[in-house]
């Protein structure tokens, strides 16, 4: 399975990527939403996108809206991973088309549990 990790913090990209690699994902990353869209435009379509909210150039909410406006990317599952923890923000993200929402700080188990809910744990890990 493939995952695209989008966060302006290199440290956070490494942390999220490390968790997903441990679960068997093939990873690419991007520093903001525009870079993330560039990866999709290349034709590298992931099963999962983990995207931060507050980023320069293009924020996570704009990224979610852009992905959802393109029918070719309908299969992509989007999980927001962000320190924005207000209820209204969560509702906005889900309304824009995100499937799940993880609030920083998070644990590896929290990510794993969300992926299990989404049916996105690779089979050998889920067993």
């Amino acid at each position, binding site marked *: 399975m493939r995952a695209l990790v989008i966060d*302006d*913090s*290199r*440290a*956070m990209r*490494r*942390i999220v990527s*490390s968790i997903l690699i441990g679960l068997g994902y093939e990873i690419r990353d991007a520093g903001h939403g525009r870079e993330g869209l560039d990866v999709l435009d290349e034709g590298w379509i992931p099963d999962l996108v983990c995207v931060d909210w*507050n*980023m*320069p150039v293009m924020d996570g909410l704009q990224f979610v809206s852009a992905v959802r406006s393109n029918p070719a990317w309908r299969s992509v599952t989007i999980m927001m991973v*962000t*320190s*924005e*923890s*207000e209820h*209204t923000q969560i509702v906005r993200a889900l309304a824009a088309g995100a499937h799940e929402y993880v*609030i*920083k*700080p*998070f*644990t590896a188990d929290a990510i794993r549990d969300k992926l299990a809910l989404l049916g996105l744990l690779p089979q050998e890990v889920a067993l």
Partner: protein
Amino acid sequence: MTTTDTGQRRRSSDHRPLIPSLIDEATVLSIAEEAWLALVGEDEVLVPLSVELPVDIMSSWVDVVGPWTGSVVLTTGRCTAEALSRALLRESAPEVLEIEDVEDAFGEIANVVGGNVKAALTGPSSLSLPQVGNAPVVRNPADVCRVDVVWRGEPVSISVQGALPPLPVLRPTPQNPLRENEVPL
């Protein structure tokens, strides 16, 4: 007749909340502890203790803009900021940490702590991207909630501090008495 607003009169609606009325030290400490456990490591403990910061310090912060406007600032020694960054990156930390790596990781900790402080405040607010450098100055000493902790024996301060100066104090005079809806500040 023309009158001039000297800014000396304030109505009760001009009230601006100060951070100690919105969040307490225990909540800030709890937010920081949770961030440390998740980001820095499961065995990483913050000990509430006030120890003098070293001379060579580094700060990271995020700004919060809303009903309360200010910054959530982390300050520690540069060596401690580097150790924090290594702990955050764990096995993916490069052998030699560049200053950009430290700024990025230390900024991310401020981002996570700041985001959760913002969530604890009332009303919708926005959060800036993290910044690293010399901390914003304290404009109003009454608008600060500061927690001092020790991590691995080194001091770290977490300060939630207002960005605005105090409102002028209204002093009634015989020529300028307090009127209805005006409050001394």
